[in-house]
């Protein structure tokens, strides 16, 4: 594919113009700075919970738990996703981002960094140990909530930048379907902007006035409902960019093609439609929402499994068709033909393997009755560590190994590739041990979000201790892997030899006709609005009309 670029503005050896590459890199490196701190907090948490170390008196378990959750699940992911999507949009629309997109991109970065700093400072000052879900009535400093709001608004601006690039491309290419990567990026941001509106309402109209003392109490039920309106699509905001790498980048890395353009776009439209009206499956044990509404959300949750299964099918199909073309035969002989020593493939593939039990666990969590077995146990922590912490994170690591050198005009060297393989193995083994222990303890009833305790030496709790130590050991391996990753990425940013690293974008093998309706946004946004009103309209109206007595703020730490 020929990529238009002005030589004087381009970094030598990079497929993307300097201005777009710098913007993407700025996002990616804030992501990894947050990742490093989060990994340290996570390792300490595992050690404390496993009874191996005790924290000094100036900090506490819930403070480092909040730091780990906020920095890893909110900051690392959001910054990486924004940077990755900007780079891919530039790569697939001619190699650059135009003025409006760049302006939106930098304005978003400034707001997001400001918000991150505000949140981090309040956490470090022990004024915001409210965990990353910031459930009321735990009350943080108002600056924590204002920082969170700035983070969200900044990500919207980044989304507007992608929309501006999309509009420009459509104007210049009338009647054509947009490139697959751009289509997926736009779908991700449409979903994200719709899904973050209610949490913005929660933060602006409930949490900030309440934490400032302007109102004495808060409607807990409503705040939790608005949080989970956003909280589950947040999971898809993590997953969709990983799927973008799986659908568009991985086929090129293994020497294959996109299996089906229409299937890929349809999967993303399904994710847009069904990832939002599902939040009650996080609230199945809560009073104040009737069983009927919970059932509607459970049904919609099980529908959102379908695009993930479509993705699984599509990936197997890409692997099989590519492996067979390279001479693989038999039922699974094609697996041998995949590039197992290429970290750009190996890391995301291991992530995909983790996603199989991760997805199976998600179906268990969303099933009304059996949710009672695992609700608020450490099973749930294990579940999101193998989904976001393994499937998504390993994909982002795999992407970083080629994205960073592609942006800096350097080479992914053999040694960096080999170290990346080692890092992936450490991460996979650490995550396997830690999450297996978490799932097992959770099935035995061990609660999540608790400091080290033996529950007054209760025999059941003492029976969990061996698993707690396995969990801590797994956390240690993950920390080693995180340090190794940051060293490799620093090398790829500043020290690797100058040269070409491909930005892999696959295309379909033959021209495929794609139904035009897949790109008719008013249809899909209208349907999303309909589903949201159907699933949330009445319950939210009821929660406002028939409020339980509000709660004053609590500080438990």
């Amino acid at each position, binding site marked *: 594919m020929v990529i238009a670029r002005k030589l004087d503005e381009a970094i030598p050896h990079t497929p993307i113009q300097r201005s777009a590459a710098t913007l993407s890199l700025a996002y990616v490196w804030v992501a990894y700075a947050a990742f490093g701190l989060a990994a340290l907090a996570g390792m300490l948490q595992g050690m404390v919970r496993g009874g191996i170390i005790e924290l000094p008196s100036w900090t506490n378990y819930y403070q480092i738990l909040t730091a780990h959750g906020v920095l890893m699940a909110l900051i690392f992911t959001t910054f990486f996703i924004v940077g990755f999507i900007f780079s891919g949009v530039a790569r697939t629309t001619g190699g650059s981002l135009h003025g409006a997109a760049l302006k939106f991109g930098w304005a978003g970065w400034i707001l997001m960094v400001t918000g991150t700093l505000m949140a981090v400072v309040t956490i470090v000052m022990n004024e915001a140990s409210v965990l990353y879900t910031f459930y009321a009535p735990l009350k943080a400093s108002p600056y924590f909530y204002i920082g969170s709001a700035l983070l969200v608004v900044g990500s919207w601006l980044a989304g507007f930048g992608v929309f501006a690039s999309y509009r420009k491309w459509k104007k210049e290419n009338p009647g054509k379907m947009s490139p697959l990567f751009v289509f997926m990026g736009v779908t991700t941001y449409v979903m994200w902007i719709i899904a973050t509106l209610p949490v913005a309402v929660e933060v602006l109209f409930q949490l900030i006035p309440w934490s400032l003392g302007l109102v004495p109490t808060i409607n807990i039920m409503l705040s939790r409902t608005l949080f989970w309106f956003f909280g589950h699509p947040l999971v898809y905001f993590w997953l969709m960019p990983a799927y973008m790498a799986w659908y568009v980048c991985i086929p090129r890395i293994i020497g294959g093609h996109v299996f089906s353009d229409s299937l890929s776009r349809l999967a993303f439209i399904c994710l847009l439609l069904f990832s939002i009206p599902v939040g009650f499956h996080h609230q199945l044990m809560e009073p104040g929402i009737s069983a009927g509404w919970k059932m509607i959300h459970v049904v919609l949750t099980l529908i959102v499994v379908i695009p993930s299964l479509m993705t699984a099918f599509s990936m*197997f199909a890409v692997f099989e068709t590519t492996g067979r073309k390279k001479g693989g035969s038999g039922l699974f002989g094609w697996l041998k033909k995949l590039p197992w020593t290429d970290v750009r493939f190996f890391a995301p593939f291991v992530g995909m393997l983790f996603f199989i039990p991760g997805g*199976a666990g998600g179906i268990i969590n969303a099933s009304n009755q*059996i949710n009672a077995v695992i609700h608020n146990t450490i099973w749930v922590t294990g579940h999101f560590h193998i989904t976001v912490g393994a499937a998504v994170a390993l994909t982002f690591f795999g992407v970083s190994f080629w994205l960073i050198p592609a942006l800096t005009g350097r080479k992914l060297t053999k040694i960096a590739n080999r170290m990346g393989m080692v890092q992936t193995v450490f991460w996979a083994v650490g995550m396997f041990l830690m999450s297996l222990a978490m799932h097992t303890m959770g099935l035995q009833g061990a609660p999540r979000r608790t400091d080290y305790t033996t529950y007054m030496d209760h025999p059941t709790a003492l029976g969990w201790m061996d698993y707690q130590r396995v969990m801590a050991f797994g956390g240690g391996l993950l920390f080693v892997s995180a340090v190794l990753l940051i060293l490799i990425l620093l090398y790829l940013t500043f020290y690797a030899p100058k040269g070409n690293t491909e930005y892999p974008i696959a295309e379909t093998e033959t021209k495929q006709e794609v139904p035009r309706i897949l790109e008719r946004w008013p249809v899909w946004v209208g349907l999303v609005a309909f589903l949201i009103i159907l699933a949330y309209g009445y319950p939210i109206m009821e929660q406002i009309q028939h409020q339980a007595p509000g709660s004053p703020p609590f500080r438990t730490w």
Partner: protein
Amino acid sequence: METQIDKLEQNKKSKEKKTQPEKEELKGTFAAVLIVGGIILVGWLGVFGLFLERA
């Protein structure tokens, strides 16, 4: 007798055919998705069994 229009139709059809992917062997994919389905089913039934036992 083939007319000019028939020939045009045939050309159009063969062009349409070329835009579709070749028939590919996907029996491994079929087996793999069955394995994924099996894992989902076994996991779900396992925890449902725990639920029934504790209910």
